[in-house]
């Protein structure tokens, strides 16, 4: 009778052992990760990086999927040089705004910039991090990358549901010699609140205002189409559904080898998406005039080589930081990204913010990020 109680201890003990083993593995796993955590060499010229207090060894960011491939690459590169980890979750611009307003992350990322009034109402600081291009991707047999030509009016017609088949006269007229099937155009848009949608719909409103009447915002009432979650989901859906068209940030199209289209820009020139065409559009931006909110729309810019659906992606941070170490760690990461991250950006076809612009940001916007009134940076 006395020894028999052992059996009932078995189950909770087993569960406890499992949990402890897993936690131990996880903690031990720190040493198994590819980057060294302790004693990492400091980035030259940044003495404040050593020693890094425990609370600031991980930066949490969430938001736009538009810059996500780049932010994640920056995160792993930065981890190698500084030992600080960036956990960036691609949940869409809407999610990023929501998360930073709820203070569950250190920074939010959004391609749909907030206006000054909303920034002030939520105590947020906003600054641009990167510029990129949004492209149309199609899933059509026999059409090569960069072959199909579309104008803003045609794109608007497709997404409004007025142009329903691939061999519609409007499309055929632009593409003589391209074999277009008579099948239905399957439209894919975003199901979540998206900065990419914000950029895309601003383009349609600006360049095809007579056709496009569904508005311009992170989320709109789409007349037709199925929804994909994130740029990732739209790209995946277009890959899977034959005869479909969707809009994604360029890296998603290029890195997966999807078929992109040419667009006609404001000057009437046919352009293919490329980092040069994004940079040409970004060159027109007057950042000084956009302060203090740095609100900027880059669609449909004049210029012979500009890509018409270009946009900037922004970072949002709480002006009043709860933890000085974490705020500083985040800004140090962004400083590294500005000064040393241009190569990684170019490799993924994003346009890096030029020095004169980021110096403006660091002198005018970053001092507003404080802990009890004292700026966190420098």
């Amino acid at each position, binding site marked *: 009778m006395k020894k028999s109680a052992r059996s009932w201890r078995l189950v909770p003990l087993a569960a406890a052992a499992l949990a402890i083993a897993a936690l131990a593995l996880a903690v031990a796993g720190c040493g198994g990760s590819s980057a060294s955590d302790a004693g990492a060499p400091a980035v030259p010229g940044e003495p404040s990086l050593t020693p890094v207090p425990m609370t600031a060894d991980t930066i949490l960011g969430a938001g736009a999927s538009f810059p996500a491939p780049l932010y994640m690459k920056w995160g792993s590169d930065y981890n190698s040089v500084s030992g600080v980890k960036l956990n960036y979750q691609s949940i869409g611009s809407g999610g990023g705004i929501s998360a930073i307003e709820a203070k569950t992350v250190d920074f939010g990322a959004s391609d749909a910039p907030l206006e000054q009034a909303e920034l002030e109402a939520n105590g947020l600081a906003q600054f641009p991090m990167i510029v990129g291009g949004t492209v149309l991707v199609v899933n059509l047999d026999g059409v090569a990358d960069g072959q199909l030509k579309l104008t803003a009016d045609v794109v608007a017609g497709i997404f409004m549901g007025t142009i329903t088949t691939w061999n519609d006269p409007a499309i055929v007229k632009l593409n003589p010699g391209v074999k277009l099937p008579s099948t239905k155009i399957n439209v894919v848009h975003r199901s979540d609140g998206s900065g990419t949608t914000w950029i895309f719909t601003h383009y349609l409103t600006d360049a095809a205002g007579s056709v496009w009447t569904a508005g311009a915002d992170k989320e709109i009432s789409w007349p*037709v189409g199925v929804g994909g*979650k994130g740029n990732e989901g739209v790209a995946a859906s277009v890959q899977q559904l034959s005869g479909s068209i969707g809009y994604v940030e360029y890296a998603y199209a290029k890195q997966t080898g999807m078929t992109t289209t040419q667009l006609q820009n404001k000057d009437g020139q046919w352009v293919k998406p490329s980092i040069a065409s994004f940079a040409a559009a970004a060159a027109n931006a007057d950042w000084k005039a956009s302060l203090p909110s740095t609100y900027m729309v880059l669609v449909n810019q004049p210029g012979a080589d500009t890509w018409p659906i270009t946009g900037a992606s922004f970072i949002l941070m709480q002006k009043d930081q709860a933890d000085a170490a974490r705020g500083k760690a985040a800004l140090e990461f962004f400083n590294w990204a500005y000064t040393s991250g241009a190569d990684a950006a170019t490799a993924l076809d994003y346009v890096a913010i030029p020095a004169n612009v980021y110096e403006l940001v660091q002198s005018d916007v970053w001092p507003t990020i404080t802990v009890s009134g004292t700026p966190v940076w420098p």
Partner: protein
Amino acid sequence: MSTVELDVQQSPGAPRGAAQAAPRGHRLRLGDPIFRGLATACGLALAAAMFGLTAVLVYNAWPAITGLGTSVLTTVAWSPVDHEYGALAALAGTFLSTVVAMVIAVPLALVIALLLVDLVHPSVARVVGTAIEMLAAIPSIIFGMVGIFVIVPFIQDKLVPWLLTTPLANVPGIKPGPQFQGGGVSIFTAGVVLAFMVLPFITAVSRDVLKMVPQVTKEAGYGMGSTTWEVMHKISMRYANSGIVGAVFIGLGRALGETMAVAFLIGSLFTALPRSLFDPGTSIASLIALTFSEATEKIQVSALIELGLILFLITVVFQILAQVWLRRVQRATGGRA
């Protein structure tokens, strides 16, 4: 359980402990009350968890309940940017995908249960039954993945184009609506995958219920010269029909709450009612899963939680109905469901 137990129940710890305490001297018998107290506390914790969940949901949904009222149930579109918080499209999608799932799963479950109970040797029944139950063990996300990589291309590229060439294409409900996008991601696809997710539950409960039919009654039927099917359909199913209804309710409850597979497969169209099974749509669970993390305005979060509350109440109602119907079988056959 037999009534013999009651005799045992009537004297927990104390009196026996008192009888024991005398020869052992002054040893306090705390073990029993403590153990009983702990066990009761854990039992009550179950109830407390449920009430806590309901309370938190109602509290967080309250701004929407008072601010939006019944408009949530009558407005079609879920369009926060237009300040429209209508769940009708989501409710329609939930209902339609569940109906598709039930139409496929219930007959299939019943014939499989018939097989397991009457047609095969018990050891074969155990193997087949276990294989079907493995379907219940497969996580929802894997159904979603297989759905999106295998079922969706099949439906989009093969099934729907073929279907549109047949006369069925003009049947209302199959005829593509204005929102039709090829049919790959649609109510139908979600319903088909849902069917196989709920199949094991309906099968298991139906089988248990059919097993409870007294052997004597069935043998009387066989003795009269009935075929297996006739015994099943005129005797077993009549006897156990409450239980089968209960099984269907359990399946319904599960189908209504399924999130991940549906989120992958239903097309995420929040703003229009589906006019056809092959139109994209949304369900309440997938709407919440996809849009909750980006709800910025308080009324939006509150409206989403109100939707969650509605879903919660619907599943609770179906669970209770299932319990009630299953209990009827218990009383009819004298067994325990």
